[in-house]
Structure formats: structure tokens, C-alpha cells
């Protein structure tokens, strides 16, 4: 790098700091600019000279790289399109069906190249294990997110989630009212998980839901594994991973999955029902994080501002995911009430896996899962 260039960057950074200081809490005058180096370290929109400056900086970067966002998952298709339509910034969406770990692997392997993902949407376990890869950032609506749902400095913050559920095609199987129904002969080869629980978060939570329904606790998943052992013995557990295609074609008429993913099958299968057992209400959220080596740092931050705006949150809700600001938005009336009414009803107190509990469950599954179902 030429020395002159360095000075120019430094000067810009100094100017930006003064602008931010001058603007104070007045939240940006719109005339300030947000250079690349400022954007890289900006921990809030004000640190980048306000929303208009952030938008301008993101537009001049001209692109946003996202990864592992399936278009049919939590309404991401509409969210990606809306972002591009609003800001005119094209999005490169890599490996849409990848796992959280694939996202982290991409961040490490692509490092500082221009193809590296700017932003991540990962499971909590992966977020906690990789905080050294993230840049701290607090969205404008930071205050609406509960303290238990974010890292204090903004390295990661939960985005959307839901409850584990039993989704089923009521035209193919009898109505399900309790977990033990699944062991019946009407369910031969019909019950599926969304992935392998030693690998996929949704599947691990599926086993945990079975565990809670069978009287187990969050600390010990063994009853859930035992349930699947019996399910396999009865010939009811199918080894096919449930996807939109297998549900549509009827290969997996009963799926243990997050309610927001399951409810979305209703568009393909009108007789699809989603049931959240009262004795096993298990909640789970994903988290957003910004890659600290993001090739488009301003676009990455603008993406987060967009996701946590009322528009972004309501788009997730329209995809039947429960956005993290849902409670606050319900209070101030900015929630899309029609979309909220479509969520499957939940009666009871939801339980959430702590990090230690998730680790204990994972360790037990690694040691016992494959022998239990083979």
C-alpha cells in the first residue's frame, strides 16, 4: 500500500470520528460519509455517519455476499429480493443449503478474498464457538433484543426462531395428539427428522423434543435417543432427510422440525398440520454475525440494519419464523398481525437449551445415536 493512501484513510477516519462526535445523538445529518476503513470497524450505524452514509457506502461497495440462506427457509427468498430492490445492491448467495459449520468453514477458507461471506446466519453453538471470526455490531433496534439473546458487545445477536413441532399430512396419517402415537402401526416408515442429529441443529432439537415429551430433561437427552430406538425397532423411523421435495411427494408424511419450517409445507400440502406438544415446547433461535474480514463491510452492516428493521422482521414473520423483536413490535403495534396469527398456537412455557446442555446432548448423541438407530 502506498503511504499516501494510508494517510488518506487515516484522515478520513479522523474526519469520520469528528463527524460522529459532532452528530452525537442527533443520529446523522445525512451529509457524513462512511469510508471503507470506518465501515470495517463501525460498531453501530452512528459510528458510520448515520443510515444515509451507511447506505451510500454500501452502494459504492456494490455487492453483498451471503451464504447458506435457502430461499424457502424463513422467507429468505423474499428478504434477499427486497434488500436488492430497496438499495439496488446485488446479492451473491452461496451454497444456499449449507450448514452453519459450512458458513464458518467458508469464512476461514475464503479469508480476506472478495468472495468471502459478509454476514452469517448460524446456530447458537456455532456462533459461540467462533466469536473470534466476528466483528461486533449493534443494530439500531439493539434495545429490543433481550440480553439473553445477544452477545453484550454485538459479536452475535439472535435473529429468528421458533419451536420444535410435529408436522404431518393429515390425509396420510391419523391426527397426532401425543408423542407415543408415533410408535403406532399407522406410521410405518413415515417419521423423519430434518437431518442427522449429530450434524444438524434442527434434528438435534427434534430428538430433544422427543426427550422432553418422554419425560426427560434438558440436561439428559437419553430418553429421546431411546424413543428413536423404539421408533426404529417399530419400523416407523425413515432414514430420509425431510425436505420440501420429500414432504411434497409424501415420502416423509411426519416430520419433526422447527414449526416455521414445517408450517411452510402447508403451501405444497394443504392437509399439512403442525402440532407443538404441550409437554415439550422447545424453543430455538438462530443468530446473525458479521464476518470481521467482510469484503463489503458497509453492505454487511446495512443488511443487519435491514433485517432488524420492522420490514425485515415482518418478512421473517411472513415466513412463519418468530423474529427476535416480535414482543417489542407487538407492544408498539408495528407487527404484521395477520402473519402473526398464522403461527401455530403454543400453550405453555417454552424451554431453551443452554450452551452447556446443548453440548451435553451433542456428546451423548455422538456416542449413542448411530448405534441406537442401526
Amino acid at each position, binding site marked *: 500500500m502506498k503511504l499516501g493512501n494510508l494517510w488518506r484513510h487515516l484522515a478520513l477516519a479522523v474526519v469520520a470520528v469528528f463527524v460522529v462526535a459532532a452528530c452525537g445523538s442527533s443520529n446523522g445529518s445525512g451529509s457524513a460519509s462512511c469510508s471503507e476503513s470506518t465501515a470495517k470497524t463501525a460498531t453501530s450505524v452512528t459510528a458510520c455517519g448515520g443510515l444515509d452514509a451507511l447506505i451510500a457506502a454500501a452502494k459504492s461497495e456494490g455487492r453483498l455476499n451471503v451464504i447458506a440462506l435457502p430461499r424457502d427457509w424463513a422467507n429468505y427468498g423474499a428478504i434477499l429480493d427486497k434488500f436488492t430492490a430497496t438499495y439496488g445492491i446485488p446479492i451473491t448467495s452461496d451454497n444456499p443449503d*449449507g*450448514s*452453519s*459449520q*459450512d458458513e464458518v*468453514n467458508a469464512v476461514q477458507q475464503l479469508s480476506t478474498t472478495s468472495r468471502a461471506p459478509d454476514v452469517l446466519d*448460524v*446456530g447458537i*453453538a*456455532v456462533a459461540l*464457538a467462533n466469536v473470534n471470526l466476528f466483528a461486533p455490531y449493534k443494530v439500531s433496534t439493539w434495545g429490543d433484543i433481550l440480553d439473553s439473546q445477544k452477545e453484550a458487545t454485538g459479536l452475535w445477536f439472535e435473529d429468528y426462531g421458533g419451536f420444535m413441532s410435529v408436522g404431518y399430512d393429515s390425509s396420510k396419517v391419523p391426527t397426532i395428539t401425543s408423542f407415543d402415537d408415533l410408535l403406532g402401526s399407522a406410521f410405518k*416408515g*413415515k417419521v423423519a*427428522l430434518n*437431518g*442427522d*442429529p*449429530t*450434524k*444438524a*441443529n434442527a434434528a*438435534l432439537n427434534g430428538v430433544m423434543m422427543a426427550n422432553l415429551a418422554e419425560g426427560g430433561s434438558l440436561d439428559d437427552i437419553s430418553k429421546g435417543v431411546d424413543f428413536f430406538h423404539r421408533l426404529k425397532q417399530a*419400523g416407523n*423411523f*425413515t*432414514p*430420509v*432427510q425431510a425436505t420440501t*421435495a*420429500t414432504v411434497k*411427494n*409424501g*415420502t416423509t*408424511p411426519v416430520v419433526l422440525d422447527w414449526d416455521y419450517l414445517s408450517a411452510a409445507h402447508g403451501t405444497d400440502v394443504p392437509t399439512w398440520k403442525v402440532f407443538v406438544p404441550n409437554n415439550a415446547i422447545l424453543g430455538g433461535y438462530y443468530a446473525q454475525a458479521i464476518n470481521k474480514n467482510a469484503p463489503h463491510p458497509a453492505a454487511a452492516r446495512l443488511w443487519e440494519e435491514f433485517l432488524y428493521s420492522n420490514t425485515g422482521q415482518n418478512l421473517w414473520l411472513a415466513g412463519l419464523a418468530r423474529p427476535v423483536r416480535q414482543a417489542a413490535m407487538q407492544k408498539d403495534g408495528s407487527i404484521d398481525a395477520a402473519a402473526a396469527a398464522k403461527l401455530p398456537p403454543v400453550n405453555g412455557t417454552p424451554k431453551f437449551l443452554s450452551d452447556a446442555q*446443548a*453440548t451435553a*446432548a*451433542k*456428546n451423548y*448423541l*455422538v456416542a449413542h445415536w*448411530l*448405534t441406537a*438407530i*442401526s
Partner: protein
Amino acid sequence: MTIAGSPAVAARVGRPLAGGRRFSLDWVGTLPFFVYVSAFLLLPTGIVAIGALFDANNAFTLENYAHLSRSFVVKSTIDTTVVSAITAVLGAVLGSLLAYAIATGNPNGVLRRVSISASGVLAQFGGVTLAFAFIASIGPAGFVYLFAQSHGFDFYAHGIWLFEPIQGLSLVYLYFQIPLMVLVFLPALDGIKPQWREAAESLGGSTWHYWRYVAGPILFPAFLGGTLLLFANAFSAYATANALINQGAPMLAQQISNAISSEVGAAEPGFAKAIAVQMIVIVTLVTILYSLLQRRTSRWL
């Protein structure tokens, strides 16, 4: 390969270097090949084999290799090897019969051209598409099964064998193994000249004699080579198996995937490398077995 007879070499040989040792530059020609093999085969193998000796904190450990004795890895090793062997042998036999049918037909005929193009396409038709094609046709909700069931023929009455590793995967893999064998075996069959058969017959040989002493010995190495290729092809297949049987990771390639990209925090990259080394060892063993068999049979035939 030798070029000792060429004048240029002879001239050089006639002028020994100091110390009497001949200096040859013949090996230079093989350099690109060895550089290529080192960069894309030996180096990755070395990285994987050595990487498996370290844990997540880069400390030396033998645990990753010790974990290969986990019961599910052992089971998956057996299943993978059995499925690969079954589909290699069946694929080779059926594929070579089909290739023979094509080779004896009209060399410019429509049937031959169609069969070869179809084999070219089908040999590459694998992965999620193929698995789903089977699920959608003969799966438990597939239209073929539902039709058969409604006509009193319930071929899943004793369990859904399509989702059992050995039966299910063998059936699905054969779909691309047979056409692949056709592609690799047809050139060998085309090399057989009809005059040889005529010669054998004019010398009083029967059909059995012709196959036993003429065509058989010529074709057998190509047949064995094709079988080995099919074995390796099935052994390393991943996407098809994963789409058909996701739970329990019955194939070794799926075990590697599970160990690399677990999003529940069960990622063990070192263990994944150990499994990869094990796969390399098995394929190497099969290759050695193949070359021994090749040498042995050349003596029998």
C-alpha cells in the same frame, strides 16, 4: 519406454561423463506428470494423513485413528465395502454383457449410437436427482409402489428395503455403474477382430475354445480394470447415498461429512481426516489385490 536405439542417444552414450556414469535426461519428460501427481494426489494425501495426527488445538494425538474403532465407523466401513463390491461385480458383469450386445450389433447402427450416448449421460447421472428419482418412483410414496400395492403386490411388506444401505444403495448405484462399465469396456470389445474367431474356427476350435484361449485372455484385464474403476466409483460416492439414506450415515463419505460440518458442535476435523486415510488404505489394498490378480490370471490364461 526406451529410446536407446535412437542415434542421438547412442551418440550421447558414446561419450561417458567423468567417473564413467552415464547422465540421462530421459526423466525430464515425466516431470510434469510427477509434479501433477504430487500436487494433487501425494500432497493432499500427506496433509490428510498427518493432519489426522493432531487434535483441535494442534497437539499431537493418536485418538483420531483410535476412533476408527467406533462401532458405527466399523459398520459403515463394512457396508461401504460390501455395497461397492456388489455394485462393482454386478455392474461389471451386466455392463460387459450389454457392451457385448452393442459391439456385436451394426457398428454404424442407430442402436449402437443411442446406447453409447445414453450410457454417457446415465454414467454421470447420480446425486440428489438420482436418489429422488428412485424415491419418487419406487419409494414408499412413489407411484410405482402405490400402483403395485393397489394390485396386491406390496414389495415393502417386510420393511422398506430401499432405505437399507446394502439393498437400497446397491440398486441405485447400479443405475450409473452399468452404463459406466459399458463405456469403459466397449473399446476393448471393439478391439476384438472377427478374423480371430474365424481363425479359431478354421483350426477346429469350438466357441468355448475361442472364449477360453482367444477372446477371454484379451478381454479379462480390461474387465478387471473396469471392475476396479466401478469399485472406486461406488466407494467414493456421496451425494446419492446422502439423499437416499441420511440417518446413520451408512457410507464412509457421509461419516467424513458429518465429522467436518456438524453444526451442533460435534465437528472433528482430525477424525474426518482419519476416516479419509482409512478410505485411501482400502482403495490401495483393492488396487494391490487387483494387480496381483491381474498377474496371476495372466499366468492361468
